[in-house]
């Protein structure tokens, strides 16, 4: 899917027109706002897992909302990089830990941000919740449904906040699309959504061990490569379905107002067969009630389409691209809907978007024509987590929704493995 500059311009204009006046993040607690302030300073946070995603969240932690007290990672190299993130923003240094349980014992924390490999989510999150900490855990929720349910139950037992890191829920473009287009029925009846996440690469990270004698076996990884490239091995990961599909499927379920009823999938490990177990090409069909279907494809051999979600309705088409751009086309407007492949080079087209800046209160500032910062979603996610802790502000995603998304993606994994149609009950 690619568009001419004229089509992009037209699609952006239509989108902005449709969502004009819609608050980016719907107001919550309107009546409560009439009461006075609640005492409390920034939330005291610890971070467990400071790989790429953990450091993004660390960098997007607004010091007005949270104070980073402690950093925990089994890889000392990652802690050094996390230090650099803090010092770059002029934030005070945080204490280091390799063991998250030791961190919980020694630090006075209110919340923990967990961004560790998928297979460790359930144990760490349940441990944090049982220690009375609030938790923001990266997606996917857990490696299996049982792990997700343990997390959900632990949060309920402990009476603590548990949010899962689907940052699209905090993205003003998605909020505006939901409020101004999906809820208003602008698209007519939507029978089909297309989810695409295409890349051209082996997904493999390369990095030197922190020291020649570094032993990752203490943490359950036989080699440093397993620790570094955990995404590529079944024991720790659910591959593209967990890391990419779960983001998009969760949003389809939000926009459709239903969860998938059944899943068909195929795919396999076709290109990068060396030192890898998880599929590098995945094709899934998610069946929703009332004849609605979402298809997801993720390939690692071509990046022309890059990543987007397209909702095809009887009256219009909504495209949410790269988490920063949004286009709306009316059905029947041949000029606008005639989306052609342009002669542009392959790869993501990173044109500036006309999305609008979001202020601290989550309102779209009208009249601005600047690109929405993709990182702003992470910033609002961490801030939203802190606000949920301090003043019970409702979570945008929440663990129940995240569990349902995980269930759909794990069913897709099963369908792909067994080459069958898996029915979700």
């Amino acid at each position, binding site marked *: 899917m690619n568009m001419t500059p004229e089509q992009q311009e037209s699609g952006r204009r239509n989108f902005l027109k449709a969502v004009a006046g819609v608050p980016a993040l719907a107001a919550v*607690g309107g009546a409560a*706002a*009439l009461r*006075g*302030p*609640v*005492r409390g300073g*920034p939330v005291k946070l610890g971070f467990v897992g400071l790989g790429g995603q953990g450091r993004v969240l660390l960098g997007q932690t607004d010091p007005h909302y949270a104070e980073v007290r402690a950093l925990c990672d089994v890889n000392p190299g990652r802690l050094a990089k996390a230090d650099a993130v803090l010092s770059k923003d002029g934030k005070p240094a945080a204490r280091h830990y390799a063991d998250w349980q030791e961190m919980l014992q020694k630090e006075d924390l209110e919340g923990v941000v967990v961004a560790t490999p998928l297979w460790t989510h359930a144990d760490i999150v349940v441990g944090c919740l049982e220690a009375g900490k609030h938790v923001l855990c990266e997606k996917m929720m857990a490696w299996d449904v049982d792990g997700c349910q343990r997390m959900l139950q632990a949060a309920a037992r402990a009476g603590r906040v548990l949010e899962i890191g689907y940052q699209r829920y905090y993205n003003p473009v998605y909020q505006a699309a939901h409020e101004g287009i999906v809820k208003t029925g602008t698209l007519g009846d939507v029978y089909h959504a297309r989810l695409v996440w295409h890349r051209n690469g082996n997904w493999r990270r390369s990095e030197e061990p922190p020291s020649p004698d570094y032993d990752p076996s203490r943490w359950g990884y036989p080699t440093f490569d397993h620790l570094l490239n955990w995404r590529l091995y079944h024991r720790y990961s659910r591959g593209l379905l967990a890391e990419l599909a779960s983001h998009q499927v969760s949003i389809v379920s939000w926009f459709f107002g239903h969860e998938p009823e059944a899943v068909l999938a195929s795919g396999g490990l076709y290109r990068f067969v060396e030192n890898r177990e998880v599929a590098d090409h995945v094709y899934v069909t998610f069946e929703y009630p009332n004849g609605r279907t979402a298809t997801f494809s993720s390939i690692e051999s071509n990046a022309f389409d890059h990543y987007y979600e397209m909702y095809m309705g009887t009256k219009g088409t909504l495209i949410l691209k790269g988490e920063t751009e949004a286009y709306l086309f009316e059905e029947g407007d041949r000029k606008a809907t005639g989306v052609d492949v342009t002669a542009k080079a392959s790869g993501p087209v990173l044109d500036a978007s006309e999305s609008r800046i979001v202020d601290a209160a989550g309102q779209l500032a009208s009249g601005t024509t600047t690109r929405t910062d993709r990182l702003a979603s992470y910033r609002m996610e961490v801030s939203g987590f802190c606000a949920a802790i301090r003043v019970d*502000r409702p979570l945008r995603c929440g663990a129940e929704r995240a569990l349902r998304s995980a269930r759909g993606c794990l069913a897709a994994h099963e369908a792909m493995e067994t080459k069958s149609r898996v029915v979700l009950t």
Partner: protein
Amino acid sequence: MTPTSLSQAQQVALVLLRTLIGWHFLYEGLYKLAWPAWSRGGVPLDRWTSAGYLRAAGGPLADVFHALAEPPWVQGVDFAVSIGLVLVGLSLLLGLFSQAGAIGALLLLGLFYVSAIPTSGVSQPMAEGAYLYVNKNLVEAAAVAVVLTFRTGRIAGLDLLIRGRRRPEPREEALAS
């Protein structure tokens, strides 16, 4: 004039006026003391400080206000203003030491007014309304003057209890009988 010469409606209106002014002062003070705090909507609130207000001050005492806007004075000013607002607010709300509370309110309002006397007659950025010489501070000060001169503590409030304790001796009517 004694309170008893006022009609019941007049007395109620005067005490209501004092109570509302008291609530206004009390909440302004508590809000300033609430930091660190969050709004109910989930946004951390900046620490309140009078520094910006003082730096922007004009009028005859501008130089004094500007000097007070700088450390170490400003921290003291912030605390004194917050506590002053709370004490005045409690006094007027409860009708306790009402006369002193009303004088304190007049002093505070006087300072607020003198620091920013509206002379432009047009609306200012970040402020609602347009004012020429008379603004809400001045109107509230006039209302406090009414509360002060009518001695509302004698109509209703905790001052009545204190008056009762100070005069344990028999009242004149009782002696006469």
